[in-house]
């Protein structure tokens, strides 16, 4: 299971602790969301998280610090999940070096098309970072080939057209999209967008190699942000969502 959280929400100093809680709850991969002022691909839940993180003073440098903290405790893979502009501003060469040094494993840029990806991908890969691209239900086969070509690590399959957020059902287009991608690439496929219930995990888990959930976690962080019990609550929620058996408490 791939778990997303917006780094810096509710506070920059909390991020590493929350990542570790999600790992204890059963997350296998973490997407560290870099907060951005204008998150055009996100629904209200992640928009609000982004606002809270920015108000709390989170920056890209702060996200890398959080990654470094996580790395001291665990080897769980960390993906930097960001809009382009904070990375453009930081500079890809510098980012590639600093992210690799901080223990980041890969980078996904929501608003980077493969057409514009040549230079960022070359620089990130040169530092050993994976580059993950989104495949969408609207993507043509020509585009899917390019996406597979530019991706390493895995391909992130968007389950439906639209923005991030919890939904009652998983998009119907995801099955055919996964099937097409299987013919084009041997990379693992992670499916996300709208996944928020244990049933979704089972349904998507049958066809995908990994399932991504984001807004559902961010909502828990929003609801319990001010409480000391947040890491425990998040850990329990993670466990319920991915259906990991409860570890007996001694």
């Amino acid at each position, binding site marked *: 299971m791939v778990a997303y959280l917006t780094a810096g929400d509710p506070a920059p100093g909390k991020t590493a602790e929350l990542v570790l809680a999600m790992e204890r709850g059963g997350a296998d991969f973490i997407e560290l969301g870099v907060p*951005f*002022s*204008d*998150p*055009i*691909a996100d*629904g209200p839940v992640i*928009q609000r998280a982004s606002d809270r993180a*920015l108000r709390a003073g989170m*920056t*890209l*440098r702060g996200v890398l610090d959080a990654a470094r903290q996580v790395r001291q405790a665990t080897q769980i893979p960390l993906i930097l999940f960001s*809009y*382009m*502009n*904070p*990375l*453009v*501003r*930081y500079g890809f060469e510098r980012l590639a070096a600093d992210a690799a040094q901080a223990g980041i494993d890969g980078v996904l840029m*929501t*608003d*980077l*098309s493969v*057409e*514009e990806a040549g230079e960022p991908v070359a620089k990130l890969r040169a530092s050993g970072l994976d580059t993950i*691209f*989104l*495949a*969408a*239900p*609207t*993507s*043509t086969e020509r*585009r899917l080939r390019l*996406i597979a070509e530019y991706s390493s690590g895995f391909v992130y399959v*968007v389950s439906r*057209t*639209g*923005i991030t957020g919890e939904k009652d059902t998983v998009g119907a287009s995801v099955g055919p999209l996964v099937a097409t991608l299987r013919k084009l690439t041997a990379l693992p496929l992670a499916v996300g967008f709208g996944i928020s219930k244990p049933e979704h995990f089972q349904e998507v888990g049958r066809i995908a190699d990994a399932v991504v959930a984001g807004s559902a976690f961010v909502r828990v962080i929003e609801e319990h942000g001010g409480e000391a019990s947040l890491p425990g609550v998040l850990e329990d929620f993670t466990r319920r969502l991915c259906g990991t058996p409860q570890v007996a408490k001694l």
Partner: protein
Amino acid sequence: MSTISALPDAGGHFGPYGGRYVPETLMAPLEELEKAYLEARQDPAFQSELAGLLRHYAGRPTPLYEAKRLSGNLGGARIFLKREDLLHTGAHKINNCLGQILLARRMGKQRIIAETGAGQHGVATATVAALFGLECAVYMGEEDMRRQRLNVFRMRLLGARVVGVASGNRTLKDAISEAMRDWVTNVATTYYLLGSALGAHPYPMMVRDFQRCIGDEARVQILEQAGRLPDAVFACVGGGSNAIGIFTAFIPDAGVRLIGGEAGGRSLRLGEHAARFAGGSPGVLQGAYSYLLQDADGQVSPTHSVSAGLDYALIGPEHSWLHDQGRAEYLAVPDQQALTAAQTLARTEGIIPALESAHAVAMAVEQAPAAKNQIFLVNLSGRGDKDVDIYRENFPELDPSDANPNR
């Protein structure tokens, strides 16, 4: 210089600027839009229907008017106004809307969405949607809804749904984000009618092409009336559609200065203006790479302008290219200077300009006295009816307090 007008390249780049920076879900729809547009552009039936609507519905060609009293009072350059304010709906925005609505119909889309800042593009979109019987939703920041109440009502009267946007600064940028979220969700049925020379390719190219009639007409008209090309062309620049519309015809004329007026706002401190070339650096926002007002961490800065239509953090990508090439100059025009110019134009020529257009007038007014024997062409992109409330707030001496309920 002729190579400049051959831009953008196949990927939508003007030099390094422009391109396509959007979520993957929108990439194939943008390719489809580009293909449909390139076909329509070559189709005589499309072009002839558009020309007919521009002439008989919108009111093209617009007059080129020599502002003799204004020029005489300033004692320098002869100032000519390109009267886009006389178009149906009161601004140049209708040129682009008519082109894009024909394209939407050609693509079989049933639903139109748009963003609006000052409300002029929203009104023009609501107008063409009504004309073609298509469903229409317009996203507008709540701050802009407050500033431009009259246009909100006009859109509703035309049958459009106005959707208030409460995120961010609650202005144009936030309205565009929300329109993009709608588009990404309803992309199969919905046409996004973007109103400025912004966003991902093909929008900056397409909007420029639909607006270039302004400069094409003005170039012929000024040759007829003045017997020669102008020395300088002035236009205000928010996203930059009216400016690119009047500049394009003159780009190959190396002797013609092209001057864009950005919103200088209250001051040139970050957050108090929208002058991208005065305080910005290249970045990515809402689909394009261009000069952007941002902080050291790459977060987009809040902006301010007395004029809602200029209140935006990114400049259209072709302007960034013209700027870097030295082909166009861009000046920051403070709020106060634009307000004063509006009053000057009203009192010398009997024309109340839109606040946006007042920024262009202000530059010409400032430069005219020292420009004897020169010819200035100013794009009067919109009329000021929508701004009367703001003029009223800013000229309290004209509005005794007992008669003003806002005070």
